């Protein structure tokens, strides 16, 4: 058995709505105290998976374990989970205090204990002055804090977050993100967090599970996901602007696409190099220009279509033969559209994919 204890285990989970298979034979182990982010575009099944863990959806087949207990058919409240929703889901007719204590009252916890727990949660979240207010009188950020508090008071093992920040504006979202991270460090609970925002995923997660079509495409740390995407989907999904993909062939560890010849000597082949068609994936910031391009083993001439200055960065949309190439370089660049650039490919940071299996070579 593994040395770290598993907080949540999911075994062969299936969920079908009629003929639509939302989750398929899904397996996932989440470690004690881990912050796991379920990331994917809408309809990938991430929220569905979270609802299955919470017990809000009946699974078609498979098992869910929390703390080693099989909870597949248990009521949500009996699973030791707390949940925070996108729309906050505060009970509008109850005060903040009422919202925090509702779950405890349902669990028939003594009144003084409820009081204690509510006070502690309010302190942690700094919402003590709001306790007597109704949710209608709170700002978005305050509401979300109360929603988190509702999970907090219940003293649960696992926190489930269903896109908790997507209803907030960008500034507040960034603030609360930091607070969530701090909260996790403070509480050390297991947290499962659903989002479609890669920034949240990258900043918050211990591990990220990228989902597509009811399956997990890759489960790894943010760095690994970013640097070593296991397949084309993950590679294309993570990173903005998206990774460049160049069609070509691989012969003796050299990737060739028309005139471009890239020796991939530094590349860590997973199963050893094999010849045949391949796709080179390289992030915009790993295509170098100017002096740094010269030091690269593979170089090419591209013509610039469009330049976007972002202040800190500059994005260059260029063309290599028929292929579009995105390049990210430092701000205040003098490059204009129409220029012809000599670019270099940093092969150490690139990925190679098999066009048929779409998996990393």
């Amino acid at each position, binding site marked *: 058995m593994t040395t770290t204890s598993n907080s949540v285990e999911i075994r062969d989970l299936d969920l079908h709505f009629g003929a639509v298979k939302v989750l398929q034979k899904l397996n996932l182990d989440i470690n004690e105290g881990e912050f796991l982010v379920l990331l994917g575009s809408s309809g990938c099944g991430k929220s569905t998976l979270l*609802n299955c863990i*919470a*017990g*809000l959806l009946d699974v078609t087949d498979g098992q869910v374990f929390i703390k080693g207990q099989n909870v597949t058919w248990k*009521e*949500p*409240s*009996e699973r030791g*989970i*707390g*949940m925070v*929703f*996108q*729309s*906050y*889901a*505060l*009970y*509008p*007719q109850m005060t903040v205090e009422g919202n925090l204590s*509702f*779950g405890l009252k*349902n*669990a028939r916890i003594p009144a003084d204990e409820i009081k204690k727990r509510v006070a502690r949660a309010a302190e942690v979240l700094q919402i003590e002055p709001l306790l007597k207010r109704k949710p209608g009188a709170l700002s978005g950020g305050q509401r979300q804090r109360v*929603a988190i508090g*509702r999970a907090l008071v*219940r003293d649960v093992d696992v926190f489930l977050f*269903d896109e908790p920040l997507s209803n907030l504006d960008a500034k507040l979202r960034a603030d609360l993100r930091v607070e969530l991270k701090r909260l996790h460090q403070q509480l050390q609970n297991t947290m499962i967090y659903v989002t479609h925002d890669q920034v949240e995923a990258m900043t918050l997660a211990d591990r990220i599970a990228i989902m597509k079509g009811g399956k997990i495409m890759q489960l790894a740390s943010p760095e690994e996901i970013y640097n070593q995407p296991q397949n084309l989907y993950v590679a294309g999904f993570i990173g903005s602007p998206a990774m460049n993909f160049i069609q070509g062939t691989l012969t003796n560890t050299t990737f060739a696409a028309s005139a471009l010849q890239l020796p991939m000597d530094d590349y860590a082949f997973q199963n050893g190099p094999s010849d045949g068609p391949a796709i080179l994936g390289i992030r915009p910031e790993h295509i170098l220009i100017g002096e740094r391009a010269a030091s690269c083993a593979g170089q090419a001439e591209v013509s610039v279509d469009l330049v976007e200055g972002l202040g800190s960065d500059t994005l260059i949309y260029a063309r290599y033969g028929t292929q579009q190439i995105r390049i990210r370089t430092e701000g205040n660049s003098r490059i204009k559209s129409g220029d012809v650039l000599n670019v270099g490919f940093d092969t150490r940071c690139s990925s190679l994919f098999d066009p048929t299996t779409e998996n990393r070579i």
Partner: protein
Amino acid sequence: MVDLTSPVHDRIVDGPRGAKPKSRLSRRNIFLYGTLLLISVYYLLPLYVMIMTSLKGMPEIRLGNIFSPPVEVTFEPWVKAWSQACTGINCDGLSRGFWNSVQILLPSVILSIGIASVNGYALANWRFKGSEVFFTILIIGAFIPYQTMIYPLVILLREIKLMGSVWGLVLVHSVFGMPILTLLFRNYFTSLPEELFKAARVDGAGFWGIYLRVMLPMSIPIFVVAIILQVTGIWNDFLFGVIYTKPETYPMTVQLNNIVNSVQGVKEYNVNMAATLLTGLVPLIIYFASGKLFVRGIAAGAVKG
């Protein structure tokens, strides 16, 4: 220039909005208000005539015209309609029907709304295998002519020994009120954020807990709408009242029809009109008192899911 071509479209059915038109006597305005006033006359005429007739004595009715106001105002027809008009040898007027209607109304409204709101809640949040099928049957049932179900219901009520009693009629009202009310509540509960329901489940509240502590307090407006819908509907019912009650428990509408259509000697049109107005009074009061809610109620009842 009159700014009539840019209407303001509020989503809510609300009172007059926006700035008043700049020129009051434009041709367009005269046409618009003229038309509206003319139509208003058509709608108000019957009420006016009923009130005028009910305040006249019989001799004046025979001589005068129905539109002229009474020369001599008398409230006797009202008194007579309320407490003396006869059906058979019972000469206690409409008052009996009024109290019968009240006795039918209260339990009917409570029971039908109680059942329908729970149905709507179960359908919105606790779907189970077949629940949609039953709901579909229910909605189709709203369109089935009552005539095809009247007789089986007589048999049914006979079997459970409720035929002719107030409770039998209460049951009939609950059954026939169920489709539209269930639809109303289901749509309302569906419109509430689903996450609220999920949150309550995570918080450990059960079927009834969520209904009573989370859903009910959030649904006061829809309950008011349903109450308005049911009070006017049940008060105005005639068919079920005729078939499922007996003379002692006749609701007001049935008694009204009896009083007006059972003539002793000459037709007392003034008493008839007073009786008619009395019967219409309850829904009218509700209508005028509830104002926008009534409008919202019938619009809500009409708009499908």
